């Protein structure tokens, strides 16, 4: 058992379970109570209360649902999109590879967060404020890393014997790609996806902090830190707990990713 893997998985599972159980163990995250405004952590409010007297524990837990759901959605869509584009680019080569390669270069040349901010701004202006703007914006910048990695793997896989064998028995190009090449490249992509989840959570939180992400009153960690920053000297718990959960979830995914990479590298070395 890889220790990094287990620790990372444990942290993620803990946060995910807390998030899933939020409706059972947490209070209504929207309920305001101005009498209990800015209360420090106590038995009644384990993480204290915010500026509107809302229970911060509940908001952080409900925020876990939001952050993990959005991050997972982004990762799945980006991964699928990136894998297909990267595989097509690497497998077919030639002009297809040149065009896709240049597109990837263009995307990689623009700083990711700046690109995300611009995209969210454009989508908000065009379609109004929505969580799907954030998902779409991050997917647009995020698929590139999957495509790049997949392309590299496919370039080496397509020369392997099992691909040549498949071709020899008359299998079609798309069949080989979907049935043999992509499934054989999935290991490193899963590692990348796991490591990338941490980045995506950070991106969502950054956009939330800048006020571009998920809109209030929906609980979201980055947005909660932004709202709490004005109170950092008088009510530090407003920023501490959402910050802690961001740090823990990023740490969890990074540890899991690192662990998975170690396991897969060892496996390929043995093979």
């Amino acid at each position, binding site marked *: 058992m890889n220790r990094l893997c287990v620790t990372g998985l444990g942290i993620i599972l803990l946060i995910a379970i807390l998030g899933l159980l939020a409706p059972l163990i947490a209070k209504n995250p929207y309920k*305001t109570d101005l009498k209990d*405004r800015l209360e420090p952590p106590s038995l009644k409010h384990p993480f204290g209360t915010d500026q*509107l007297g809302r229970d911060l524990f509940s908001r952080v837990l409900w925020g876990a649902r939001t952050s993990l759901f959005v991050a997972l959605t982004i990762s799945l869509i980006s991964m699928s999109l990136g894998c297909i584009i990267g595989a097509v680019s690497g497998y077919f080569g030639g002009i297809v590879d040149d065009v896709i390669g240049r597109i990837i270069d263009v995307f990689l040349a623009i700083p990711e967060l700046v690109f995300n901010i611009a995209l969210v701004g454009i989508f908000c202006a065009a379609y109004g404020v929505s969580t799907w703007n954030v998902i779409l914006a991050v997917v647009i910048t995020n698929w590139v890393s999957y495509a790049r990695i997949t392309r590299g793997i496919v370039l080496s896989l397509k020369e392997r014997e099992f691909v040549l064998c498949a071709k020899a028995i008359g299998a079609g190009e798309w069949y080989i790609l979907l049935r043999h090449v992509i499934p054989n490249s999935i290991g490193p992509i899963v590692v990348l996806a796991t490591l990338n989840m941490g980045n995506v959570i950070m991106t969502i939180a950054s956009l939330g902090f800048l006020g571009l992400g998920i809109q209030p*009153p929906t609980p979201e960690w980055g947005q909660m830190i932004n709202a709490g920053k*004005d*109170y950092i*000297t008088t009510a530090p718990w407003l920023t501490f707990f959402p910050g802690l959960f961001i740090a823990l979830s990023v740490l969890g995914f990074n540890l899991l990713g690192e662990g998975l990479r170690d396991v897969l590298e060892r496996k390929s070395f043995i093979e």
Partner: protein
Amino acid sequence: MITRRDFLKYVALSSATLLLGCAKKEVTPVTTPTAKPTYKAEFVLGYGKDHKLKGGKWGIGFFPKIHVLERLVEYDLKHDEYVPSLAKKWEVEKDGKIITFELNKGIKFSDGSEFNAEAVKFTVEWLKLNHPLGAETFESADVVDDYTVSINYKDAMFFNLAKMAEFHMSIMSPKSVKPEGDPKGEFVLPIGSGAFKVVDYKEEQYAIYAPNEFWYERFGIKPKFKRFVVKFIKDDDTRVMALKSGEVDAISDYVHGGSAYTPRNLLGPLKREGYNVFKRIIPLTWIIAFNYKKEPFNDVKMREAVDLAVNRDDVVKIFDNQVLPARTLFIEDAPGIKEAGVTYEYDPKKAKELVEEAGYSGAEVDMIVDKSQSDQILVCQLIQQQLKNIGLKVKLEVLESGAYKERRDSGEYDMRMYYIGGTDRRFYLRMYWRFYPGNKWSAYVSERTGELCKKILKEFDKEKRKRYLIEFYKAIHDEHGVVPLYFDIMTVVTSKNVDADYYSLFHYPNGIPFGEPLFYNVGVRA
């Protein structure tokens, strides 16, 4: 060799000396006269907005307009009177189409040049060519003699006089532009007759002023510092930290009001930590404005429902009770408010009934708010919860300033946070901007309120104007045109070693009340 006797002698002598030394010293009381505190040569203020001393669409910043320049008249809100400032008196002709100002003699600009009718004419012409408010206000200015000037306005109305107390109508020396005195000339630096003159300025970083000796001489007072440094610290919390770290001696709200202010929730803790907190309530009311031209808020019942559903006592708790709940349209010092006797109540039960009666129970409405207004975002979230209790689902949209303005101007919203009024001098100006028919920044206009607003801004007679104002407050209430939420304040927070007093912070030396903080009498003890 010391003998036993010598030893005992030494011991006795030392003990006596020690005892004498320990004895309480007889102190002769000395009466010293109360020493005058010595002040540092520099006063440093933390402020949230650039002073734009090189000018812009709306001219220089509001802060230098107040501290470097002066106006012909000032406004006393409590008595609803325009009082002399640079002008000694004035005569209104043709129902306000022409106002002839007789100017005070012996006033000098900070560069030593004379303030006279030519300077007023220059300012009027410059504003007409270079300023949106000047362009819509002035026709021309005629110099009658050195100290008398006639200003011709585009329309005949009382509002022309009211505008002369406005920030933007501040008088500047013809030497403020290049070539000197040319209204078409390039703006160089503001030269005024106010308390301070500009020494240095770095955009978005700092402005340095020095006391204008002519101004201090005029009022017979002496400055307590030689340099007045204003550091532009945009983030509200960082400004407070700068005060705590000693980087600045004081922090002040943006004199415009409504933004770049010291976080209200920090005022209490700052006071408890020994800082001096000065606050003045201003006639700036935060409101909920409706898109009353479309469903559902074209229905007065729905507007009334929102009005009754808002618990203003809870709203002000967001601000640590530092602001006051708005149970009237403006603060009680505003003309006609007390006499109108119109109050806004909290009755969620009735509100719910009204929503049901109007057939909108469970309906979704959207509320837009400017992202830069973090306090307003919180207020909106609270209102969202309060309206949920009466069966209205509020979809809150926090928008970038540009997007917010776009949505506001195109009418793509149901409700939004807004404000009416301003600092004292802007009472009538905002009446015009918010309630006069045809204004792009309006909050609510109906046939009844629009007509009353026109009458208010036309009427020179104070008593008649007050009657119109009373009718106006009643009309706005009857039609539930806007929902007043809370009255804003203007604050100054100073370090423990700063000598400042409420009176001089919010009054000109001649006793005229100012809604904006003034710093002419502040001193930083060495």
